[in-house]
Structures are given as C-alpha cells and as structure tokens.
C-alpha cells in the first residue's frame, strides 16, 4: 500500500513519540511538525523532556514508540516499519542531515576552531583539506571569528566556543539545526553575541528547533513556541499568543509567572 505524500510535507515530523527512563515517562506521545524555514522554540520547566525530545531528533537518544521523520525518512529505525534500529553507518548518515549545538559546547579539545569545523566536512562530506579549510574560514567569518581559526578551544571564551560550535554545525549544511540550551552555560554578557548569530541564521531561512530559557529571544526570533510540561506538549502557538497574558493554560501561566519572577 502506498500513501500519497501530503501537499506540504513537514521537514521534521515527530509523531506520537513516547519514551521512558525506567519507570519515569519523559516523553508522552509528543507530536510536532516543523516546516522548512520555521524557527520553533521549545520552552518548559526543567525535567519536562525538552532536551530529550531534541536528542531524539538526531537519535542521540532512542525512543520507545512513535516515529521521527526528516524529509519523510525515519531517523533511527529502518524504513521497513519494524522498529529495527538502523545500522551505525546509516545512523551516521542520517545524523549528518541534522546539526546540533550543545549547552556545554562540546568542541573537540585537540582541534583548532577551524579543525573542529573541518573534521565533519572531511570525514563525512568527503571534502578535500583545502575545500574544508575554505568552508571553515567562511563560517568562522560568519560568526565573527575569522581571526581565531587557529586557536584551540581552551584559548577561546565561552561565547567564542559556542560560536565555533554553531559554525561546526551549520558548515555541514544540515536540513535542520537543533539548539539545546546553547546560552545556558554562558556568562550573561556573552549571551548576546551567540544569539546574534542564531538570529542571522534564522534570517537566512535555516530551519531550527531550539530549547531555550531566553524568553525575549524566543519571542523575537521564533515563528512558533511549544510549551512542554511533564513530557507532553501542553501548549503550542505563535509567540504573541503563548507568551501573551490571555493564554488559557494554568501550567503555562504559572511557569511564565515563576520565570518572570526570577528573571526580571
């Protein structure tokens, strides 16, 4: 049986995904569609499953049921529909379609800024060293670090490391970029420079799903906000609606109230 593709297929299609760690249900039948060019922000109290959801999208975490498709292709399981895990080679190929930026940067400490970006370009994309270097320099320029190409991560500030982290992810030309609380480990004065880079990527039409606690940024930069609570999607909608005062969702209201109390 073949199903005709929908008219406007979602680039990322998360449907009915559930996952438990032991007896704790971290994701309860989460569904989320993201179309090309959208910037979706996921907010919610800690432990609500935001990061886990993001890590399921590139299969850094597996899930118990449901499906996650990028461009119609199941990410972690074989296309046969049997929930048979893909081979490691296939998984690697699928993961190269998404980029991820981490809360703790996770740069490779033995490689320079350019080296960090070049590794995937060379080993996964098969670029020559010269090509990879040119691409790395281009992206380092984009994030304002052209002069730091040969610096080691240890020689860079947190904000600079995170910008290299972003450059490393986007240089691979992923279909979708996953941002996991990328400013949470930064000193307040360094947050702005990182968000500026994200904003410019959004303007370029990069599809993004980000988990963040930067509400002001979420309001300005996202096309949609998802509020997660207890492993499920509790509310979803445009920023004005979700962060507005009219919203009829007790959990969201108390989350935002607590959030405002601690941040403003």
């Amino acid at each position, binding site marked *: 049986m073949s199903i005709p593709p929908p008219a406007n297929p979602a680039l990322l299609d998360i449907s009915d995904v559930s996952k438990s760690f032991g007896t704790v249900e971290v994701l309860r039948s989460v569904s989320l569609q993201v179309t090309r060019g959208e910037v979706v922000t996921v907010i919610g109290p800690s432990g609500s499953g935001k990061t886990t959801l993001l890590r399921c999208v590139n299969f850094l975490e597996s899930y118990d049921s449901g499906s996650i498709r990028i461009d119609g292709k199941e990410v972690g399981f074989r296309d046969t529909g049997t929930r048979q895990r893909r081979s*490691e080679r296939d998984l690697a190929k699928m993961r190269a379609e998404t980029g991820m930026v981490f809360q703790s940067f996770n740069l490779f400490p033995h490689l320079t800024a350019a080296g960090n970006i070049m590794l995937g370009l060379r080993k996964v994309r098969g670029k020559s060293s010269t090509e990879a270097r040119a691409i790395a320099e281009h992206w380092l320029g984009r994030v304002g670090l052209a002069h730091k190409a040969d610096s080691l991560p240890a020689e860079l500030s947190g904000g600079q490391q995170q910008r290299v982290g972003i450059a490393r992810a986007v240089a*691979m030309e992923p279909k979708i970029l996953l941002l996991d609380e990328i400013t949470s480990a930064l000193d307040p004065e360094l947050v702005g420079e990182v968000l500026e880079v994200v904003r410019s990527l959004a303007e370029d039409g990069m599809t993004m799903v980000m988990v963040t606690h930067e509400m002001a940024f979420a309001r300005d930069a996202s096309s949609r906000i998802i509020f997660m609570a207890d492993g499920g999607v509790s509310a979803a909608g445009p920023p004005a609606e979700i962060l507005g005062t009219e919203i009829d969702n007790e959990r969201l209201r108390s989350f935002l109230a607590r959030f405002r109390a601690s941040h403003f």
Partner: protein
Amino acid sequence: MGYTLNFNLIWRHFEKLWGGLLLSLELAVISIAIGIVIGLLLAVWYVSAGRLVRTAIAAYVEFIRNVPLILLVYLVFYGLPTVVDIAYSAQTSFIATLSLYSGAYLVEVFRSGLEAVPRGQLDAGKAIGLTPWQRLLHVRLPTMLRITLPALSNTFLSLFKDTSVASVISVPELTYGAQWINFNTFRIVEVYLVVTAMYLLTGYALLYALRLVERRFRAAH
C-alpha cells in the same frame, strides 16, 4: 674501614654493562611496543564489548597484576615449554612475558583514559555524522592520549626498570652484567654503584624525553 673502593676492575669489564644497558633498552622498547598494541586493542574492545569480553579482559589484567613479574618469567620460561611443545630463547621468552605484563597495565591506563573522554564530545562526534570508527579515531583516541600521557610516562619508566628481572633467566641485560662482574671480581659495592648510576641516568633521560613529548603534545593540541 678496611675496604677501599677500586673501580678499575669495573672499567675493565665495562662492555658487559654497556652492552647490558643497550639490551635492557631493547627489551623495554620491544615489550612496550607490543604491550601498547595489546593494551590499545583490549581497551577499545573492553569499552565497546558486552559482559563476557569485559570479564575475560578483566581476568587477564587481574591475573597479571596480582602475580609477581619474576614468577611470570619463570612460568613462561621454565613452565610453558614443559607442557607445550615450544622452544624459545630466554630473551624471546622474557620479551613475551614483559609484553603480556605491560599489556595488562596499559589496558588499565588506556581503558580509564577512554572512559574519561567526556560524553559530550562523543555526542558531538555523532551529531556531525561520524561513524563509530571515525569517532574512535578522530575524537576518542586523541583525547584519551592527552588524558593518559602522564600515566603512560610512569608506566614506561617502571617497565624499563622491570627488565632487570630478565637476569634471573640469564638474559645478559644490565643487572645480569652487574652480577657477572660481581661473581668474577667480588667488587660488589663498586659494580652496584655503577649500575645504579646507569639505571638512574637512563631513567632520568627517558623521563625527560617523555616530558618533552608531553609538552609538545600539549602545545600542538
């Protein structure tokens, strides 16, 4: 004091000591090289394998670590050929023993280094689409090496000193050379003074060289 130091007899037989030192170094280098291969392979296997393999590797490590080296040397040189039909020289036998011995210690060094590589770096490797083999080669091993270099230097140095055990099966390395001179000249104080100085200087030189490697490695990475 009725004893006067007389080094003349030592210098007359110095080629025994010099040749012995060179052989000690040769034994150490070959055994450590084989030990590194054993250690790396088993450590990588250990961190990615199931319980059965882990238990087997742990058993090997524990066996070697809990039996004195001298006993292992006797077992391999005298014991093994009496039950199995093989013949080897004392030198080959000692290299085999010290290789197995250093392998066990190096498995431990490499394994703890591999396990100390932060999870986040492996995630980052996965996220850019590296295969498990590429992650091992380009992310995990380089970081592991940085973590383990100081411990490696110590292990290498103590393995170099362990070559002196080869004297018990008459491999003519440095300590054996000392014993030979002692038996033949009765200059026990002089010969052991000289040999101690030779171990000391060589050990220092080795450690200094390894420190240089460490520093260069840190600067280059």
